[in-house]
């Protein structure tokens, strides 16, 4: 689906991290947590490509026009890392965007009886909020949030409000425990039930460490990957990662955009 959207708000929630709310067609409500959208940050040719963002939240709001009734909105949480995101951060209420999505395969909820362990590194928290909202309906949800410092720990109060039990770790100890989020996760894993599921999103080294822990404790683990992509629909083959059966003679490449961004960690080759 491709749609024109209007920015409703664009707020800096922590230095260089923004949360943008924008209008979306009602059909976006059928998307599942973990899917993403491709946003054209301006109509010009520089920057040329769309930017992918995980869906942070979806909802409806009452419009000021009585005949319009309730309108659907979409939220993204993003970090300013380059030209495209810098331009995005300057947009205001009333500005327009061209959006493609929802795209890709999202998270699978799994057994409701099992504990849900969400692990987010920095802006990797983005797709986990929408996931948490869905999971708390039926399951006990824990969030493990990691970052370099307290400014990398985003929107924790929103997770709190959902009733999610949160654990924080920062490299410099400015918030939560000092150290890696995976260390905090491991303390929990040693007593987690076998039917628990891990859902992780963040930098690749963190995902690799989480995948290793999932193997070690025999716990199901889904990871949401980031990829440098041009199209978002599986055509350009720019964002591929190696699947578990990959070799030079038997290529097993998976597109982050189409086969993911969410994968079962056991399906990937973690070199």
């Amino acid at each position, binding site marked *: 689906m491709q749609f024109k959207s209007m920015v409703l708000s664009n707020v800096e929630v922590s230095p260089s991290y923004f949360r943008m709310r924008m209008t979306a067609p009602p059909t976006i409500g059928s998307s599942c947590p973990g899917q993403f959208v491709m946003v054209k940050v301006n109509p010009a040719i520089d*920057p040329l490509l769309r930017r992918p963002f995980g869906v942070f939240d979806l909802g409806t709001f009452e419009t000021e026009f009585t005949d319009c009734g309730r309108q659907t909105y979409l939220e993204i949480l993003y970090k300013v890392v380059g030209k495209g995101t810098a331009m995005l951060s300057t947009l205001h209420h009333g500005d327009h965007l061209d959006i493609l999505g929802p795209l890709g395969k999202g998270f699978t909820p799994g057994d409701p009886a099992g504990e849900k362990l969400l692990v987010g590194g920095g802006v990797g928290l983005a797709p986990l909020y929408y996931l948490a909202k869905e999971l708390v309906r039926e399951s006990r949800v824990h969030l493990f949030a990691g970052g370099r410092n307290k400014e990398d720990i985003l929107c924790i109060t929103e997770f709190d409000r959902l009733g999610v039990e949160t654990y924080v770790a920062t490299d410099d100890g400015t918030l939560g425990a000092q150290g890696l989020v995976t260390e905090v996760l491991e303390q929990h894993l040693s007593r987690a039930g076998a039917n628990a599921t891990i859902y992780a999103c963040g930098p690749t080294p963190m995902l690799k460490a989480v995948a290793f822990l999932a193997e070690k404790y025999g716990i199901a683990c889904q990871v949401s990957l980031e990829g*440098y992509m041009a*199209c978002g629909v599986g*055509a350009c083959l720019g964002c591929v990662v190696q699947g578990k059966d990959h070799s030079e003679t038997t290529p097993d490449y998976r597109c982050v955009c189409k086969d993911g961004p969410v994968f079962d960690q056991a399906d990937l080759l973690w070199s």
Partner: protein
Amino acid sequence: MTHPNLSVDIAGIKLRNPVMTASGTFGYGSEFAPYLDLEKIGAIITKGLSIKPKAGNPTPRIVETPGGMLNAIGLQNVGIDTFIGEKVPYLRKISTPVIVNLYGNSLEEYGELASRLDGIAEVAGIEVNISCPNVKQGGIVFGTDPKAAFEVVDLVRKNTGKPMIVKLSPNVTDVVVMAKSCVDAGADALSLINTLTGMAIDLKSRRPILANITGGLSGPAIKPVALRMVWQVARAVTVPVIGIGGIMTAVDALEFILAGATAVQIGTANFLDPSAAETIAAGIETYLVENGIADIRELIGALKTDR
């Protein structure tokens, strides 16, 4: 005026309009079906196909540059057996002509691919890739030497009765020499240009951004180069020329047609807007209606160069 005639003929392949999708930017067709009506575009050119499945290059494979992008995918593809088994059945369902882009590691592989595709009814024609800048063997090795190009095109010609398009590289001193060599060897049409070899550097790490170090530049940044080469080649050969290079809008496409292109291919624009090819075809029709032109063929090569 009612509906102007947009149809063109490329070496016997009848296109309802002159807008095709470029190889490597449109998958095998089905990827884009949710976003545009495949029946509204002129032709689909599928991802470069080799005999065996090809893994492609390590990542990062893509980087954005001002007005363009560099790619070093390295011709990752499913190989001809999977293509025939899994992709052809879908292509059977659409009436739009499907042209298969093919590529070999050796002269013999080009011949074998052409011969195997010759028997497949769903394949309307082939596009011989002698211009990929991202693979060590084959590809551009054949596309930068007029003698080598002649040999490969001649061999493919002997192995196929289907219309044969040869895709040329801009990474040569004289594109007209290459074009003539391919036509002499039996090419029914020429498509140009493939990407320009380029690179991008990360100042922080002081390393090339692409794992392959260099990649192929595409997008609006290359349009003036492509337009010039299409104009030069279209004047020098009698076979149809297909223009490719940074076409984002109907205006861009019409410029290529004026320069001598019988049809155009949409590449990078598909990534930004998966419905680009359909939008551009509609835009060409609007231009013809608004300017009272009854037939697109009136515009082909109609560029005025006198002052």
